[in-house]
C-alpha cells in the first residue's frame, strides 16, 4: 500500500508532518506494509493535509486529515474524496506547468521522468540556440513574475550578446501577498525548474545559473538544494548534460528579507553582495546583468513552464489563452476564501468566476467586498469589475494588473482606507531608498491618508497628486505601482474615505 502525504509548506502548516508520523506509527503497530511518499501539494489548500492511499487500484484522496483520523483512515472507515483529479476544483483546471505537482515524489528523478520530465530538455539538447529561442517565442510565453515581457525576446537579446560568461538567474523572491505558486512548484516539482533553467542556458549560451530564493521559504530552499544535488549526481547538471557535451550548472542563493529584491535589478545587486537598490535601465540586465554580464532574469513559473513547451511543442502551449496572453496561468486564490489554493487555467476566465464559482466566495460567508489582484502593488477590484477576463491587457485596461496572479479576497468587514494606508506603509518599509518619489512619497502617503481618516477632505486631491508623482517618477514597480492599490481603493470605495467627515457634518 502506498500512502501520499504532502511535504508542501501549506500542508505542513496544517499538520502534515504530524499526520505522516502518525501514519507511520500506526502502520508499524498494525504490521502493515506501507510505502509513505511525501509528494507536493495538489493545490487544494482547504483539503490539506490531503492524504492519498493507493492499494493498487488507483489513488483515493482523504482530507483534511488530522492525527486523530489516522486509525479510521487505515481502517478504511474515513470518507473518501475519491480520486483527486475528479474533485471539481481540480477537474476544471488545465495543468501544464503544474502537471506533475502533487502527483510525483518531488525528489525522485525516475518518477519525474516517468511523468514526462526531461523530454523537453532532450529535445532542446538536439536543437540550435536560435531554434530554442524560436520555440519559446512561438509559445507566446510572457514573464510570469508580473511584468509580462515576452520571454523569447529577452532570451534572444542574451543569446546575441557576446561575453565570456552569461547567466540564467531565476527570480524566486516571491514576496507578493496572495502568491505561492513559486513556492509550490519548487517544493512539489523542483526538477521542472532545473530543467527549464538548463534549457534556457543551452539556448542563450549561459553555463551558470542561480536561483535567488527568499529566506521566508525554508522548506523550498531545502527541497531545491536537494534537487540540485540530485540533478548534478544524475548528470542533469554539470559539464556534460545527459551526455550531450553541453554544460550548465546552478546553485541556490538565499535572500535576506527585502521585498524590493524581487525587482530584477535590485535582485542582481543583492546577488552581487550589494544593498538591494534598484538600478537604472538601460543597461538592460539582458546585456549587463549579474557581474555586468548578459543575464536572463526570469520568474520561477516562466522557467518552470519551459519544459512543457519543449515537451509538447510551442503550438500546443499557445493554443491556450486569450489574445496576447497565451498559455495557462497558475492563479493563486487566497485570503478570505472558501476554497483557496492554486488553480491553473488558460488565460481569460472572468475574475468573478474565479472568486465566486471556483473559490466559492468567502470563508466567512459574508459578501465579497474587494479582491486585490497581483500582490501588494495590485489594484483592489470591486465586484462591479468581476466580468474582467483574467489576462494581461484586459486587466491593464481596468487600471489593474494580474502581476504574479495572486487573488486576495476580502469580505465586507474590510476597511479600504486602512488597506490604502497599509499599501503606503508597506512601500515606506520596503523602499530601497534610491528614488525620492518612492522613499519620501510613501511616507507622505501614510500621513496624507491619516489626514483623510481624520476627516480632512482637502487631503484627497493631494493623495491623488502624490500618486501621480509616484507613478510617473519612481524607478521601479514598488514606488510606481503602490498607487494602484491606493487609488483603486479611493476610486472604487470612496465611502471608506469620507466617513469621519460625513459623521461630523
Amino acid at each position, binding site marked *: 500500500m502506498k500512502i501520499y502525504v504532502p511535504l508542501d*509548506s*501549506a500542508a*505542513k*502548516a*496544517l499538520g502534515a508532518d504530524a499526520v505522516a508520523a502518525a501514519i507511520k506509527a500506526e502502520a508499524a503497530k498494525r504490521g502493515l506494509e506501507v510505502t509513505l511518499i511525501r509528494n507536493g501539494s495538489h493545490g487544494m*489548500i*482547504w483539503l*490539506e493535509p490531503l492524504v492519498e492511499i493507493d492499494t493498487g487500484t488507483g489513488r483515493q484522496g482523504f482530507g483534511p486529515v488530522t492525527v486523530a483520523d489516522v486509525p479510521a483512515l487505515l481502517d478504511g472507515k474515513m470518507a473518501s474524496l475519491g480520486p483527486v483529479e475528479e474533485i471539481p476544483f481540480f477537474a476544471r483546471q488545465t495543468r501544464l506547468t503544474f502537471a506533475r505537482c502533487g502527483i510525483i515524489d518531488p525528489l525522485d528523478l525516475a518518477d519525474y521522468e516517468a511523468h514526462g520530465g526531461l523530454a523537453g530538455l532532450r529535445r532542446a539538447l538536439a536543437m540550435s540556440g536560435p531554434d530554442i529561442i524560436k520555440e519559446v517565442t512561438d509559445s507566446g510565453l510572457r514573464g510570469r513574475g508580473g511584468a509580462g515581457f515576452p520571454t523569447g525576446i529577452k532570451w534572444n537579446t542574451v543569446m546575441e550578446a557576446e561575453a565570456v560568461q552569461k547567466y540564467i538567474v531565476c527570480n524566486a523572491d*516571491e*514576496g507578493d*501577498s*496572495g*502568491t*505561492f505558486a*513559486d*513556492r509550490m512548484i519548487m517544493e512539489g516539482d523542483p526538477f521542472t525548474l532545473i530543467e527549464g533553467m538548463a534549457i534556457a542556458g543551452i539556448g542563450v549560451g549561459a553555463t551558470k545559473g542561480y536561483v535567488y530564493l527568499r*529566506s*521566508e*521559504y*525554508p522548506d523550498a530552499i531545502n527541497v531545491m538544494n536537494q534537487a540540485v544535488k540530485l540533478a548534478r549526481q544524475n548528470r542533469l547538471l554539470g559539464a556534460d548534460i545527459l551526455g550531450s557535451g553541453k554544460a550548465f550548472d546552478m546553485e541556490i*542563493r*538565499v*535572500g*535576506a*528579507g*527585502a*521585498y524590493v529584491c524581487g525587482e530584477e535589478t535590485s535582485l542582481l545587486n*543583492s*546577488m*552581487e*553582495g*550589494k*544593498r*538591494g*537598490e534598484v538600478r537604472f535601465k538601460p543597461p538592460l540586465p539582458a546585456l549587463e546583468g*549579474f*557581474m555586468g554580464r548578459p543575464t536572463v532574469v526570469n520568474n520561477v513559473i516562466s522557467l518552470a513552464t519551459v519544459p512543457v513547451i519543449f515537451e509538447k511543442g510551442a503550438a500546443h502551449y499557445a493554443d491556450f489563452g486569450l489574445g496576447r496572453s497565451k498559455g495557462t496561468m497558475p492563479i*493563486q*486564490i*487566497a*485570503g*478570505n*476564501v472558501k476554497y*483557496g*489554493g*492554486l488553480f491553473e487555467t488558460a488565460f481569460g476566465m472572468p475574475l468573478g468566476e474565479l472568486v465566486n464559482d471556483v473559490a466559492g466566495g468567502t*470563508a466567512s460567508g459574508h459578501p465579497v467586498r474587494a479582491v*486585490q489582484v497581483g500582490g*501588494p502593488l495590485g489594484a483592489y477590484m470591486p465586484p462591479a469589475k468581476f466580468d474582467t477576463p483574467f489576462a494581461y491587457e484586459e486587466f491593464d485596461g481596468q487600471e489593474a494588473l494580474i502581476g504574479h496572479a*495572486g487573488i*486576495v*479576497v*476580502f*469580505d465586507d468587514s*474590510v476597511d479600504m482606507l486602512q*488597506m490604502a494606508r*497599509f499599501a503606503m506603509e*508597506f512601500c515606506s*518599509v520596503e523602499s*530601497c531608498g534610491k528614488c525620492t518619489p518612492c522613499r519620501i512619497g510613501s511616507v507622505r502617503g501614510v500621513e496624507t491618508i491619516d489626514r483623510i481618516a481624520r476627516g480632512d477632505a482637502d487631503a484627497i486631491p493631494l493623495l491623488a497628486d502624490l500618486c501621480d508623482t509616484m507613478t510617473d517618477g519612481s524607478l521601479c514597480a514598488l514606488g510606481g505601482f503602490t498607487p494602484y492599490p491606493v487609488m483603486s481603493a479611493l476610486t472604487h470605495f470612496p465611502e471608506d474615505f469620507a466617513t469621519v467627515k460625513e459623521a461630523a457634518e
Partner: protein
Amino acid sequence: MQNPTPAIPDPEIQAVIDKDLHLEGPLLPILHGLQTTFGHIPDTAIALVAAALNITKAEVHGVMSFYHDFRQVPAGRHVLRICRAEACQAMGGKALADETLASLGLDWHGTTANGAVTIEPVYCLGLCACAPAAMVDDKVIGRVDKARMDTILQEAGA
C-alpha cells in the same frame, strides 16, 4: 541589550567567512553564514568581512543594515514571525498580531523578558490560502487563531 554577548574569537569568525569566499558575490552568503553560526552578526565581524572582500567597513555595514534578516544582537531563543500581509489581514491577521503583542507587552522586534521569544513581522510566508500564518524558527503554521497562538507561545516558553 542588558546581557552583553560574550566575544566570539576572530578565528571562528574568519573560518565562517573563508567557507564562502570562493562564491561569485559572496557577501550575502557570508552574512547568512555568520548569522546561522552565531545567531547574529558580531560587531567584530564587520572589519574581518571588509578585509576579506577588499571593501570598506561602511559598505559591509550598509549591506547588512539594508536587509531585514540580519541582526546585530542575538534574538531570543526562538523567533516568532507573524505575517502582516494582505491575505493574512483578510483573515484577521492584524487583530491576532495586535493581541499577541499586547499580551506579551511587546512591540515588533521585541523579545520577552525571559529571552525565550522574539517577535518579528514578516511580509508573506506563502501560506496565503491558510491564513493567518506564522513561523516559529523554521516551522510554518497556518490558520493561526488565539488558541493556536497561545500554544505556540507556551511551547516556545514565552
